[in-house]
C-alpha cells in the first residue's frame, strides 16, 4: 500500500481533526491575547507589575513547585508499593487514588474546612499548637496536594509494571547494591514518566481554583492565588488585568509542557539510536 497517496476521504478527516483541535484550543487563546492587549501594551504590563498580582503569582508558583516535589517523591513510592507488593486492601488503595479525579474541588475545600476550620475535627489538636491551616498557606497547599494526587501515581504505575525485572536480577547477580540498582537500572527507565507526571501535576496545581478559594478565603497578598486574582478581576470588569494574568499563567503551563515534550522526544531519539547501534 502506498502511504503517499491519500484519498479525499482521508484528507477530509485530517482537515476535520486539525480544525477541531485548532479551533478548540487556538481560538480561545487568540481571543485572550487580543483581549489582554486591546488597550495596548502598557495596561497589561502595569498589571503584571502590580504587587497584588505578583503576590498571587508568587504564591501559585510556590505552592505548585512544593506540591510537585512532594508528589514526585511520594507518588512514586505509592505507585511502587501498589505494583510491587501484594497486601490486603491493595484494590481499595488503587481506587482511592482515583477519588480526587471524581470529586469537585469545591467539595474538597469544604472537606478541609470541616477538618481544619475553627469548629473542625482537628481544631482541638492544631489550635493549641498554634498552627494555622484554614485561611492560610498550609490549607492551600493541602488542597492542591489533594486534587493533584492521582497524576504522578497514574503515570508511574504502568511504567513500573512494565519494568524488566530480569535486568534487576542481572544487576544483583553482578553484585550491585540496591541503591546502585535503583539509580543505574530502574531510574533511567522511569525518567520519562517521571517528567510527564511532574508536568501534569504542576499544570494541575497551578490551575486549581475552587478548592483553594474555599480553604484559602482569597485574602489579597496572603492567600490569593493567580486563578483567584483572574476570577476577581473579571468580576470587577477589569478585563485587561484578568486577561494579562491569564496569559502569563497559561504561558507558564505551556512552557512546562513544551520542556517536558522536548525532553521526552530527546529521550526517545536517544533510545532509538541505541537500538540501532545494538542491531548493528
Amino acid at each position: 500500500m502506498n502511504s503517499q497517496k491519500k484519498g479525499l476521504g482521508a484528507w477530509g478527516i485530517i482537515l476535520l481533526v486539525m480544525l477541531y483541535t485548532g479551533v478548540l484550543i487556538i481560538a480561545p487563546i487568540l481571543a485572550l491575547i487580543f483581549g489582554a492587549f486591546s488597550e495596548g501594551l502598557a495596561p497589561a504590563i502595569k498589571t503584571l507589575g502590580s504587587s497584588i498580582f505578583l503576590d498571587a503569582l508568587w504564591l501559585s508558583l510556590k505552592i505548585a513547585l512544593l506540591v510537585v516535589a512532594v508528589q514526585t517523591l511520594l507518588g512514586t513510592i505509592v505507585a511502587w508499593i501498589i505494583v510491587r507488593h501484594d497486601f490486603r486492601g491493595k484494590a481499595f488503595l488503587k481506587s482511592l487514588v482515583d477519588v480526587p479525579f471524581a470529586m469537585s474541588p469545591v467539595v474538597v475545600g469544604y472537606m478541609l474546612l470541616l477538618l481544619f476550620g475553627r469548629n473542625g475535627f482537628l481544631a482541638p489538636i492544631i489550635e493549641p499548637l498554634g498552627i494555622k491551616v484554614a485561611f492560610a498557606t498550609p490549607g492551600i497547599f493541602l488542597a492542591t496536594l489533594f486534587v493533584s494526587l492521582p497524576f504522578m501515581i497514574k503515570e508511574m504505575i504502568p511504567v513500573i509494571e512494565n519494568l524488566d525485572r530480569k535486568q534487576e536480577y542481572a544487576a544483583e547477580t553482578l553484585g550491585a547494591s540496591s541503591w546502585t540498582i535503583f539509580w543505574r537500572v530502574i531510574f533511567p527507565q522511569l525518567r520519562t514518566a517521571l517528567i510527564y507526571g511532574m508536568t501534569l501535576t504542576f499544570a494541575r496545581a497551578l490551575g486549581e481554583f475552587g478548592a483553594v478559594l474555599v480553604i484559602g478565603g482569597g485574602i489579597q497578598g496572603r492567600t490569593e492565588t493567580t486563578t483567584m486574582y483572574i476570577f476577581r478581576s473579571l468580576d470587577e470588569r477589569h478585563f485587561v488585568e484578568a486577561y494579562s494574568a491569564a496569559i502569563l499563567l497559561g504561558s507558564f503551563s505551556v512552557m512546562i509542557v513544551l520542556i517536558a515534550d522536548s525532553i521526552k522526544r530527546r529521550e526517545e531519539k536517544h533510545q532509538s539510536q541505541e537500538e540501532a547501534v545494538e542491531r548493528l
Partner: protein
Amino acid sequence: MKSYRSFLFIFITLIFCLTACSSGETSQSEDEVKLILGAYTTPREAYGEIIPLFQEYWLDKTGQRVIFEESYLGSGAQSRAVVEGFEADIVALSLEADVNRIQNAGLITHDWKAGEDKGIITTSIVTFAVREGNPKNIRDWTDLAQPGLEILTPNPNTSGGAMWNILAVYGAAQRGQIEGVPADSPEAAEEFLKQVLSNVSVMDKAARDSILNFEKGIGDLAITYENEILVGKSSGQTYERIIPTSTILIENPIAIIDASVDKHGTRDLAEAFLDFLYTDQAQEIYAQHGLRVVNAQVAADYEEDYPPVEDLFTVDYFGGWDQIMGEIFGEDGVYNRAILQVQRGE
C-alpha cells in the same frame, strides 16, 4: 540524560529558594500594624480608595504604618469563612443576617448595633436595569409580570444579597403598591411573586454574575441593586436604572469581630478605621461608587444621583431578619413555596 540532570538541578534549587524565602515571615514591628478586612464584593473599589486615605491619616496621627489584608467574597461566603476561622478584624457585609451568623458563633460579643447608625455603613435600593431606551417600557413592578418578559435575578439560596430582591417584590406587593394586588394580603403577594419568578430566565449564584450576564445581552431586565447599575454605567455600560414606586432599603452592616481584635491586639485600630468610614471623606467615596450613604451631609450633596423613593420600606416592615429568615426564606417559607410551584409549572 544531561538535560534531565539540569532540569532536576533547577527544580531542586527552586525548592530551596522557596523554602528559604517563605521562612522569613514578615514580623510585626513597632511602627507597623496589620488590619484584616473581610468584605463582600460590591464595595471593593470604594475600599481601594478609602484605605490609602486611612493609612495616611493613621500615619500622621500615630506614626504607624497600617498594612491591610483584604478579602472580598460573596456576603454569605465571607460570613461563613469568618465563622470557620478566617480571623478578620472587621467585616463589611451585604446584610445583617450574615453578621448575625458571626455573632451567633460567639465571635462578636459587643452590641454591634449600638451606634448611632445601628451598625449600618451604606445603603442602596432594589431597582431594575433595563436595556437602553427601555424598549419593553418597564415602569414599575406590575410590568414585571407581563408574559414573555425575561428577568435576571440571582439565587437567594446562594446569594445572600439576592434576598433583597425577593423582599422588595414581596414587600411592595403586600403594601398595596402594585396595581392589581390588594394590600395586606399575603396570598395575593405570594401569587404576584410567583408571576415574577415564572419570568426569571437566569438565576445566577451572585448579584455581580447576574448583572454581568445582563451585560452580555441575556434577558430584558435585571432586578438588581442600584449600586450595581451605577458602577456598571460608570464603566461604560448603557443600560438604564428604573426605580419602582415601592422598594426596599438595602442596609449594609459593618462590625468589629471581638475574637479577632482581641487576639491581634488591634481593637483601637479597628475602631479608628470604623469611625473613619463614617467621615465625610470616606462616605463621599462610597457615594461616588454607587452607594447611598448614612452620613446626612454627604447624602444631601449627592442627592441628584440618588432620587428619593416614593414608598421606601426596610426589613423592619417584615419584623426583622429573624422573622424573614423563617417566614420568607425558611424551608417552608414564602420563597421556597413560590419557586417550587413555578418549577412544577403550576
